[in-house]
Structures are given as C-alpha cells and as structure tokens.
C-alpha cells in the first residue's frame, strides 16, 4: 500500500512545462474571449468570420488547456502516492502541442469556424467557407489531443491498479461498503480514480465520433445519425470539461490542509460523494439535450434530476469541507491560498445557475442564451482557473515566508471583481433572452456586452499578473522547500 506523501514536494520538470504552457495559453485564450465580447459590444470591428474563428479557438483552447492544467495538478500530487510514467506525461504534452498546431492551422489558415463542439454535420457543410481539408485538420487536431489525454489516463489507471490493487480499492469501496477502518485512500487517489473512470470512457466516445466524422468528411455515403453524434459529442464534452475541475480540485485537497495544518481525510461521506459523482458526471449529460425533444423522455428527465443531485457533493462535501478546514484555522493568507479558497466558492456558486438551467421548464426559455456561458464562466473562471492559478502560486513560491506584493493582492481582487462582473453580465443578458454565439447583437443587447467587456479587461489584466508572477518564479517550482506559511497561533 502506498505511503503518505512527504510535504511540500517540488514539481517535476514535466509538470512545470505543463503549467508554463497553461499560463501562456490561458492568457491568450482570455484575450480571444475579450476580443469576442468587444466585437459584440461594438468596440472593435473584426467581422463575423473572425469572430467565429476566435470563438472556435477560444472554446477548443480553453477546454484543452483546462485539461492540461488539471492534469498537471493531478499528476503532481498523484505521483506522490503511485508511480506514474514521465514518458507518458511528456507524450501527452507533445501530442497536445501537435494537436494545437493542427487546430490553429485549420482555423487561421483554413478558415474553419465550425465551433469547438464540431456539431455534426456542420464541419462538412461549410457552404464553401472552409475546405474539407480544414475541417479534417480541426477534427484530427482534436483527435490527437484526445489521444494524448487517453494515454495519460491509461497510465494513471495502470499506476492506480499497481499501487492500490484495483479501482474499487482506489475509490474506497472496502471502507464505503464495509467497516471504515480509517485506511481509505487519500482524497487525491480517490479523485484521480474517479477522473480516470469517467475520462477513459469519455475520451473513447469522443475519439470515436471524431473518427466517424473524419470518415464521413471524405466518404459522405458513410452517414452518421445526427442524434447519436450529438449525444456522443455532448457526453464527451461534458465529462471532459467537468473532469478538469475534478482533477484541479486535488490542489485544494492537498494544499489547504498544509496551510491550515488540518487533515482532509477520505471518510465514508467523502467516499460516498465521490462515488456518486463518478456516476452522476456520466449520466448528467442529457441536460445539454433538453431541447432535443426527439430523445427519449426518460433520458431528458434523468438529466433534469441528476442536475439537482449533482450539486449536493459540491456543496455538502467539497465546499463545506473547505469551509470547515479554514474556519478558525488562523490560516496565513497569501495569493495561492486565497485563490484556492476562492475556487471553492466559484465552483459552488456557479453550480447554482447551472442546475437551474438544467430544469427542463427553465431550459425551454433559456437554452443557448448567454445564461449558459454565464454559469460555466462562473465555475470555470472563479473555480477551475482559480485552482490552476492557485496551484501555480503555491508551487512557485520561493519559501513559506515569501510575502505577496501589492501587484499580487491587486490582481487577486481584480480577478474576483472581474470574474463576478463578467459572469453576471452574461447571466443578466441570458435573463433578457440574448442568444449565445452571435457575432452581432441587436442594439438593445449591446449595453450588457459593454459591461461584460469592461470586466473582461480586468480579468485579463489580473491573469497577466498571475502568469508573469508564475513565470518569473519558475526556478522555485522544482524545489522541495516549504511553501505554506504556518497558521497564526498554531502549536509548534
């Protein structure tokens, strides 16, 4: 059985490479997002084609880089419990870079703008605006990126089975269904096992539909059922982006206990929650299909119900657990710990408008309005991305006593205000029925876009400070030095 981790271990060079890539790509994708909002606000004039090309890159880039950042966090901590392959770590990054190259070529050279969701049959119906070659490059790029993640997850699966004997043990089934002997796997292992189960299935489904669409592109007589294609795409997309949060939250499980000097153990409630989440993340995806009335009604009702149930583990176990840890802890706040604490708020707060949108009757009047990017930007910007930047601050911190500068504090609060304002501008516009993914908005919709753009500037400025700070301290990321400051009043 694996042993507890030594505290404050430095990052492997591969993890540092993942994080440096994440910092750069996140920033670039945020700039693309800002340009899209500025276009809708009529502050700039890019034209519809550039808007949709940027939209395609922003979506694909953000989902991919969230995967890279989440994988870096999972790999860093999981590698302290089980033996992961460094070669596979690099292979995933290499395939990611190669896939990004194909996607960039497809969009910037080939003019592909079919959206990151590549909804069948749009990639093969361009009306002459992009070639089959451009569509194939995009689909192949996504396939290459997905293959890299599939390799990484297979290696994680191998290492977990080697270290813990089976997935059942890694998910804590002996303690969950038998006597709780207090020897359940640590939260990192439970979370990694959950992510691996759901991601392996999602990546195979995603790769299958991408391969089918590539064949269809050149052999149109090979037809795909549009409903099947849609279900496969949304299953893959939903699970993959959610898995990035479940990977990144490992940073919270591992780092907050070091700051508070309090343990975060996998007790029976924790195990029940993660095992339920394993199932719910996979079966919730019909909430993307609620307006596809032709799907079986039971499936859509299942999406509605699981949408409500899925909030319980987030609020009651992980969110509440973070509050318990921090409450009367004397925690020494710095930008890293602040971002991680903020991330739990962002995840929990973003889940509120999300599950409400998954209510069938609500979805009937709010599906594909700006309400949707409103809720996912809440839990991605304030949740997942805050976890990633929080981890970057932590891992690159030169010592436990290193104090934040004024720029870090200002950037943190700018990020909080910017992200909240940005997400609320989307949500309010959604309430006003503003359609999503529109290059041009009606004049009465433009004021919301202008407010959103102003907040987006704040986010980009804050993220620039976070990224520059991380890159400037990169040399410290590999050291085994103590990083988390001691809580005030803590016993020696």
């Amino acid at each position, binding site marked *: 059985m694996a042993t507890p981790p030594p505290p404050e271990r430095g990052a492997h060079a591969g993890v540092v490479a993942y994080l440096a890539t994440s910092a750069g790509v996140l920033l670039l994708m945020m700039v693309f997002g800002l340009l899209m909002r500025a276009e809708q606000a009529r502050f700039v004039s890019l034209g*519809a084609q550039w808007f949709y090309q940027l939209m395609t890159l922003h979506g694909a880039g953000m989902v991919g880089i969230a995967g890279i950042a989440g994988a870096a966090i999972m790999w860093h901590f999981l590698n302290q419990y089980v033996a992961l392959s460094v070669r596979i770590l690099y292979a995933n990054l290499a395939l990611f870079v190669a896939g990004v190259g194909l996607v960039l070529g497809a969009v910037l050279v080939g003019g592909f*703008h*079919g959206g990151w969701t590549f*909804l069948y*049959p*749009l990639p093969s*119906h*361009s*009306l002459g605006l992009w070639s089959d070659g451009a569509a194939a490059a995009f689909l192949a790029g996504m396939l290459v990126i997905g293959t890299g993640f599939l390799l990484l997850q297979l290696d994680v699966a191998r290492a977990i089975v080697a270290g813990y004997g089976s997935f059942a043990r890694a998910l804590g089934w002996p303690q969950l269904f038998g006597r709780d002997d207090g020897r359940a796997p640590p939260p990192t292992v439970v979370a990694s096992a959950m992510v691996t189960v759901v991601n392996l299935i999602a990546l195979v489904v995603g790769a299958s539909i991408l391969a089918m669409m590539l064949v269809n592109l050149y052999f149109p007589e090979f037809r795909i059922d*549009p*409903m099947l294609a849609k279900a496969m795409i949304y299953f893959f997309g939903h699970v993959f982006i959610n898995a990035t949060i479940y990977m990144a939250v490992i940073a919270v499980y591992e780092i907050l206990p070091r700051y508070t000097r309090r343990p975060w153990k996998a007790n029976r409630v924790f195990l029940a929650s993660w095992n339920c989440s394993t199932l719910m993340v996979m079966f919730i995806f019909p909430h993307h299909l609620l*307006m*596809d*009335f*032709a799907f079986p*009604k039971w499936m*859509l009702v299942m999406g*509605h*119900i699981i949408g*409500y149930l899925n*909030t319980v583990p987030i*609020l*009651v176990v992980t969110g*509440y657990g973070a*509050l*318990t840890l*921090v*409450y*009367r*802890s*004397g925690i020494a*706040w710095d930008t890293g710990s602040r971002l991680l*604490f903020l991330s*739990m*708020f962002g995840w929990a*707060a973003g889940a509120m*408008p999300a*599950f*409400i*949108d998954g*209510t*069938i*009757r*609500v979805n*009937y*009047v*709010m599906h*594909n309005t700006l*309400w949707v990017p409103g809720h996912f930007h809440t839990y991605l910007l304030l949740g997942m991305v805050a976890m990633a930047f929080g981890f970057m601050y932590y891992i690159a911190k030169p010592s436990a006593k290193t104090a934040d500068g004024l720029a870090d504090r200002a950037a943190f609060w700018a990020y909080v205000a910017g992200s909240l304002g940005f997400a609320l501008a989307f949500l309010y516009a959604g*309430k006003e*029925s503003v359609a999503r*993914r529109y290059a*041009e*908005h*009606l004049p*009465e919709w433009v004021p919301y876009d202008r407010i959103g753009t102003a907040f987006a500037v704040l986010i980009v400025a804050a993220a620039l400070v976070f990224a520059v700070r991380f890159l400037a301290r990169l040399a410290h990321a590999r050291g085994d030095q103590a990083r988390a400051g001691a*809580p*005030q*009043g*803590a016993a020696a």
Partner: protein
Amino acid sequence: MLQHIVWTVSLALMMLVGFGWSFALLRSGIREEEFAPLQKRAYRLRTRFFWGLVAVFGVPMVYTLIDLPYDAVRVAEGSGAVQEVRATGHMWRWELSENRLEAGRPVVFRVTSGDVNHGFGIYDPDMKIVAQTQAMPGVTNTVRHTFTRAGTYRVLCLEYCGLAHHDMTAEFTVGERS
C-alpha cells in the same frame, strides 16, 4: 416571467453561497487548535445542511417535472382547432408554412432542418423567448404553444450553424382571435 424568477433565485442562491464563504473567511483569523471537536460540530451541522438542501431543492425538482414541453397534453391549454406550422431551418434562413396565427388557439410547430443543427427560438414582441426546440436534420421536434398576446413574433436561430447564424431570423404575426 420565468426568466425573472430564475435570475432572482440564482442570485439569491449565489449570495447564500457567498455568505457561507464570507463567514468562514471572516472567522479564519483566530485559531482553534483542537480540530476534532470543531470537525464534530461541523459534521452535525452538515447533516442538517444536507437535509435542508434535500427539502429546498427536492420540491422544485419534482414540481417542475409537471407540464413538460414534450407533453402532447399542452395543446389543451388553448381552445379551438389546432394551428399547425411546419418550420424548416436552412443555412441561414427559416422556411415557415404559415406566418399568420391566432392568439388563444393552440399552435403545433413541427420543426426540422434541411442541413445542419439549428435552434428554433420563438421571441415575443418584447424580444423574450417564449418557446424553443432544436431543428435537427432527419428529425422532427414538435413544440406546442398557445400564444396569449397578439403581435409580431420573431424566430431566431439558437444553435450555432456557421457564418450567418446571427442573421438567421424569420417573423410571424399573431392576431387577435377572430
């Protein structure tokens, strides 16, 4: 209006979450060294929190499953003969079989697509969505709606479908019942 309720409830819930986080943040300064008793108290409270959530979320979860947009019984909301409209989405235009309808009489929209996925979103004269479904190739989705207000309604595409997605609109008129 449903959208207004949704906005208010979401905001209230997000503020409640924010209140919880602010509470822990404001009380994070003075350390309670013994974590086990604190954790025990927190777990007791968590059990109540869990059952509170089940009650607060459970009721709307079940209640909102009544009267789903998929249910054929919705045509009974209005009175009189059913008006039927066949709607087909194409890149980037809508083809509607009727463009004059009557308020108070049930309407059945049979929606499909001639090429890629589109979203058939019906906007009232105030430009608020009143109903929608997806327009998919090879599939017909049926929307049942009874208009209560006369006026000019617009159909906007609510599924990204390429370069002129934002320009894919149509109009129809709902008149007073004769």
